């Protein structure tokens, strides 16, 4: 399925950071959702800032507009504040994109677990992310770090518990 660009994507002012505060807020909100939906579509979990500049998200060749590096940083900062982004290094060159927050993932996983009546069972992480049973699920193919965080979130909610097993980590759902 091809990605559906939002109307702002073809609106040239979208690529200029607006000085008017109200306008800017709306603009940034639109950017955040664009970045997230794009990453979700492509199942991207990490982004490199320099590469991002050339990525179609920030660079619309059709209208010959692209977001400046400063503006990209502003967008990323906005995402970070919302909890959707985490910097991997101090230099802010690479980041984790969480187009779904760990809590949200946890919820999905738990829903699947309970829907299939598998509460009180133990799963390995691999089973969850790459098992045949979860193929149709959104969290299939979830990267380990994200899976871990999601399960940790569930653990914090008291809905799961992480267990260490001989050949890796596992989780038990309550």
């Amino acid at each position, binding site marked *: 399925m091809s990605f559906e660009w939002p109307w702002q994507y073809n*609106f*040239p*002012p979208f*690529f200029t950071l*607006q000085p008017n505060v109200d*306008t800017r807020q709306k603009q940034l909100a639109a950017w955040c959702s664009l970045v997230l939906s794009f990453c979700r579509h492509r199942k991207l979990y990490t982004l490199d800032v320099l590469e991002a500049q050339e990525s179609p998200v920030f660079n619309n060749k059709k209208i010959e507009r692209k977001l400046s590096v400063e503006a990209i940083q502003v967008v990323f900062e906005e995402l970070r504040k919302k909890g959707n982004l985490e910097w991997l290094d101090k230099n802010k060159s690479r980041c984790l994109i969480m187009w779904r927050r760990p809590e949200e993932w946890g919820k999905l996983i738990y829903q699947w677990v309970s829907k299939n009546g598998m509460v009180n069972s133990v799963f390995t992480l691999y089973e969850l992310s790459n098992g045949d049973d979860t193929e149709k699920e959104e969290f299939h193919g979830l990267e380990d770090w994200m899976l871990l965080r999601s399960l940790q979130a569930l653990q914090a909610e008291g809905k799961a518990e992480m267990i260490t097993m001989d050949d890796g980590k596992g989780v038990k759902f309550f």
Partner: protein
Amino acid sequence: QTALQSQLLKAKLDVGVVLLSTHRLLWRDQKNHECCICIHLSQIIFFEEQAAGIGKSAKIVIHLHPAPENKEPGPYQHSKYSFIKLSFKEHGQIEFYRRLTEEMTQKHWENTPVSQPIPTGIGPKAGRTRAVGIVGIERKLEKKRKETDKNISEAFEDLSKLMEKAKEMVEVSKSIANKIKDKQGDITEDETIRFKSYLLSMGIANPVTRETHGSGTKYHIQLAKQLGDMLQAPLEERGGMMTLTEVYCLVNRARGMELLSPEDLVNACKLFESLKLPLRLRVFDSGVMVVQLQSHSEEEMIASALDNVSDKGSLTAEEFAKLLGLSVLLAKERLLLAEKMGHLCRDDSVEGLRFYPNLF
């Protein structure tokens, strides 16, 4: 070489040299150079030549005034003859005669020590020096130049005196103003107010606050009223708004003489509101100052700006200016204002700055 002969006594003044200056006739002994006698030329009444003859050398006879009382000691205290004869034994008589004639004509000893007085400009005939040729023309020009110089200095003498007086007056008024400020001296409230109003009418701004636009000097008030009349028509032509620089150029071009200084213009414009004139001075965020008609409504302007931009999809400041017949500066200000209000948004790229309707 001559011999100075005296009919009475053959003195030892025999062979020497006669010397002629502009003032004196001198004779110096050839052998004894320290022996030197002279006669002032003013003593000479008359002189004549005596041609040479056989056995006689050419002579010049010089008839003299009687010796004055305070005559310098000479070879003879007195003599019964009133003339001397110069005997030119060798030659030089003709030349000498000629020169003596010249000197006697010119009578240099009669000139006063100071040079001719410079003629003043009083009367057309005063001090006319005889002048011939280029030298004469030059002299005339020089004379004229000096006259002009003098006239100018005289004229400015009054002005500099006036300036000095004015300075004194300003000092006085300043000191009084300070006294008012410090409430030193016995000045009542009434008097203070009266004095202030005097100062105001003289054109000195309120001495206490130092802010001229607050108090408004009489000049600025008058000027503001004049501007109010003058600018109505041009403002309406230009859509109700003009930058202050445009106003400055317009006003000064119209005045021709007695041009306004930028400061005066600004101060006058600041008085528009307090004088209830239908104009306003307005300062944009960027610092641009404009004069606009009071009737000018900003909302209308912005609404129409939005319409224009929506119409054309997007506009740059230049395009907008062209569309409305405004200056680019004003057009940009209007677009920026619309952006500030949230009606427009901007697209800043290598192509330039463009404004779009705010669809966000």
